[in-house]
């Protein structure tokens, strides 16, 4: 366990000291929500504002980036060699990739909380009032899943570049299918049904129902989906991870 703590500490250090990643995790989401919210504010009324919509929708999109962070933190040029040494040291292989998942989870949770707090204070995004805790927990579960997904894709493709490319298309697809950028219900029944294949749809719908209807019927299924997917992603990573592939 001591080994694991050391690796985790190093991974966290790597994440928190990269200025570009900090910008990507903090400045980018803030600007994205503010810009989208501001540009569309004219088409909303006074009860629910455009910031209420994008404060949830874009934040879910931002959670997806956890996959990009964990993939890069796992296979980036400068961590490849250290990882290589770990492979040949008496450390459980599971520690090597799982610490990346956990480090990304911590990093993204911290930056996500920060961005959410700023948005709440500056433009007053509705995060569900008293039900805030439920929303927060679901978002954290989602961050964990996407952190695990990034590492899993790395273990499958074994190349950082292909991983980045594949992830960018999967994540955009999840976003569009989940209706984060524009609602899909106007495109007919078939596309509405397909949209449930995207985890974004589950998270988004569950959040909307809690915040605006005080209806928690979708909450447990959404959490369940996240936990199951996370377990599957970690399991697949453990199965496919082969240290020698780093060479």
């Amino acid at each position, binding site marked *: 366990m001591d080994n694991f703590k050391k690796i985790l500490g190093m991974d966290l250090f790597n994440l928190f000291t990269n200025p570009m990643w900090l910008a990507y995790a903090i400045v980018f989401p803030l600007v994205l929500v503010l810009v989208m919210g501001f540009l*569309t504010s004219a088409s909303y*009324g006074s009860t629910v504002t455009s910031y209420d919509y994008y404060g949830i929708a874009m934040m879910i999109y931002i959670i997806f980036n956890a996959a990009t962070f964990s993939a890069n933190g796992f296979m980036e040029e400068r961590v490849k060699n250290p990882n290589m040494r770990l492979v040949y040291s008496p450390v459980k292989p599971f520690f090597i990739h799982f610490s990346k998942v956990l480090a990304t989870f911590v990093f993204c949770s911290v930056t996500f909380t920060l961005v959410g707090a700023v948005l709440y204070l500056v433009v007053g995004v509705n995060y569900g009032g008293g039900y805030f805790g439920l929303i927060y927990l679901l978002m954290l579960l989602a961050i964990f899943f996407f952190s695990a997904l990034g590492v899993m894709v790395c273990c499958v493709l074994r190349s950082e570049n292909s991983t980045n490319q594949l992830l960018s298309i999967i994540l955009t697809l999840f976003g569009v299918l989940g209706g984060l950028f524009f*609602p899909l219900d106007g495109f007919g029944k078939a596309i509405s049904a397909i949209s449930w294949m995207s985890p974004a749809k589950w998270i988004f719908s569950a959040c909307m129902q809690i915040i605006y209807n005080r209806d928690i019927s979708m909450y447990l299924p959404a959490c369940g989906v996240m936990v199951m997917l996370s377990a599957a992603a970690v399991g697949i990573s453990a199965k496919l991870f082969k240290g020698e592939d780093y060479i």
Partner: protein
Amino acid sequence: MIAFWTTLRNNYKRMLEHKSRVILVVAMITGAVAAAVFMNALATDSIGNIALVAPEREDGLTSPYLNVTRLDKAPPLSDLVSGKYDATVIRKASGEYEIQTIKSDVFRQELADLLADPEEYQPDWSGRRKVGTTIVGFLIMFILMQGTTMMLFFAEDREHGQIRRVAAAPVSFAGYLGAHCVYTFLILFVPTLVILYLIRFLTGVAIGFSFFQFFLLIFLLCALSTAFALFLDAFIDRSDSANMLGSMVSILTSILAGSFYSFDKGNQTLEAIIQVLPQKAYLELAGGMENGYSWQELAPWFWYLLGIILVFLVAAVAKTRRNYIRAS
């Protein structure tokens, strides 16, 4: 010239070593183009989706401009916020309509006008984008993001230090950089155009532009993307950082420029920023072409875009030269 062809051939061989990468690129471009074309084709003429709650099933409300779903009771507020319905319309026993919506009063008024006289209603679509401009609008963000990913061999050369050897060797540096640009450009341009035309001829979906117009527009877009990618990779040492910054800038500026929806209301500072964005010039150019403007009217946008592309290229080349070529 030798440096150019050698680098180009070398890039091609490096690409073949990673076949999965090539397949991914083509798959992604196919997906993006197909999405851009079909989303557009599926979109209806309606001004919104409404949930109609009426006492009797047959209420006679039909309009080509309205997507009506009949419900027994009003949908929950979350369905309005998530955008499933733009409004709930409740028909009272007296025959009057009650509108519930979270959208602006402008939309409420529009809907009220339509409900008052569904037969005569004509939406005001003077500023509405046509099909071709919408398609290229969707492609802008995607192609710009792909540019930085596809410039990877130049980024790799820089990250692994091979570029120092190139600079020290008696080869043309301009040829070397030119080859990277041509490689990135071709890998974006050829699949995009081919797939666009395949979809056009296989399914017969409208794409709005003539072959030549599309050629020119996609050419410009891919050139912009290539120049931007070279610029980023020249100024940022680590390829991951360059990719991330590229995605951030591409997403934000494309949204601001109105690649997806055009926003009519903004404030002056934002408006000024938007006016200088190359994506804005590009959309104006595409929109103008589709509306049949003359060359004189289109020329300013065209030259502006070309200017931006040149600025990116010149800055990137100057920076790389300064980094790696020692003064003799």
